[in-house]
């Protein structure tokens, strides 16, 4: 990989780089990185990786996983999807959909269970929120019993908006959280 350009940002105590990298294949891939965490923009050829990440959390009732190719094609068409990598190993995914210029919906966020509890989600979310700087409203839904996720979002300035019963049609409720800036 060759670093084309890089820019340093300071976010609280942490310093991270936002860069565009060119892979050896000459394909341009947008990457964000923070320490050893990288966000790599996903494309159709990444479907097996995305499915494998989501399958690792698919049996949890607190997360509505995307495990079919068709659903992922749809998600990739309407949303910006990143594969979260730690030391170049895929450990999660995060995606958002721009509803309009001033409104983004965080549509997916999963970390493979064995990599949870290592602040990977926090770093990935920091990078995505940095990218969405200036967007007036960012919202998301999460399961009420996904306590670590709720705490993470609240610590980033999201606030509770409402409770939705059977949000995804799986019988499980979700909490709507939003961050306005």
């Amino acid at each position, binding site marked *: 990989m060759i670093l084309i350009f890089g820019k340093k940002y300071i976010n609280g105590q942490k310093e991270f780089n936002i860069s565009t990298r060119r892979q050896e294949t000459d394909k341009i891939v947008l990457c964000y990185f923070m320490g050893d965490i990288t966000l790599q923009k996903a494309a159709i050829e990444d479907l097996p990786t995305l499915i494998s990440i989501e399958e690792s959390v698919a049996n949890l009732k607190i997360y509505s996983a995307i495990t079919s190719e068709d659903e992922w094609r749809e998600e990739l068409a309407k949303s910006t999807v990143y594969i979260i990598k730690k030391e170049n190993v895929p450990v999660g995914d995060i995606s958002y959909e721009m509803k309009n210029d001033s409104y983004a919906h965080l549509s997916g966020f999963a970390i493979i269970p064995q990599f949870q509890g290592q602040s990977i989600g926090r770093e990935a979310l920091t990078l995505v929120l940095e990218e969405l700087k200036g967007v007036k409203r960012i919202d998301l839904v999460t399961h*009420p*019993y996904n*306590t670590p996720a*709720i*705490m993470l979002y*609240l*610590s980033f300035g999201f*606030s*509770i*908006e*409402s*409770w939705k*019963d059977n949000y995804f049609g799986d019988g499980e*409720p979700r*909490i709507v959280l939003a961050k306005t800036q």
Partner: protein
Amino acid sequence: MRKIFYITGNSYKFKNAKKYAKKFGFDLVQKKLNIKEIQSGSIENIAKEKARQAFKILNKPLIVSDSGWNIPSLKGFPGPYMQYINQWFRSEDFLKLIKDKKDKSIILEHIICAISSKGSKLFKQRIKGKFINRSRGIGLPSDRVVLLGKSKNTIAEAQNKNKESVDDTNLWKKVYQWSKRI
């Protein structure tokens, strides 16, 4: 007088429990221990495990207590996770979650686990309460928006006025009666 330890960092809870101890011949002693709380969807399991861990450290008769909240219209949320939720939620957050719900009730599940070398026992109390529409008093976010039983004070207001927010006399009596027998 038999010594029994109450493992809690909460002086208000301790003071309340101590009130009944003497009548049953117990000298209740407050003890703070650093016990790692297990992750469980059951308050009973959390209390049992807490008692087991504390007994392993102290090896003396002791009591632990735990409580959870059950909001029926929110499918039992937050259950045993209230203490985590209270670290991040504001009172207004609870009100936002139930704003569209007709049923504004909440149930406090209070669990006490007594343990000694001869065994352990769980004691439970369920107290019905309801949400009000604005926060009152100084205290935990959830305590500022809930009235328990027939009280006109929120839990926070009752604590601010040094009044009992929960009548748990019978629960403690049962705990001491059982502890006396073993």
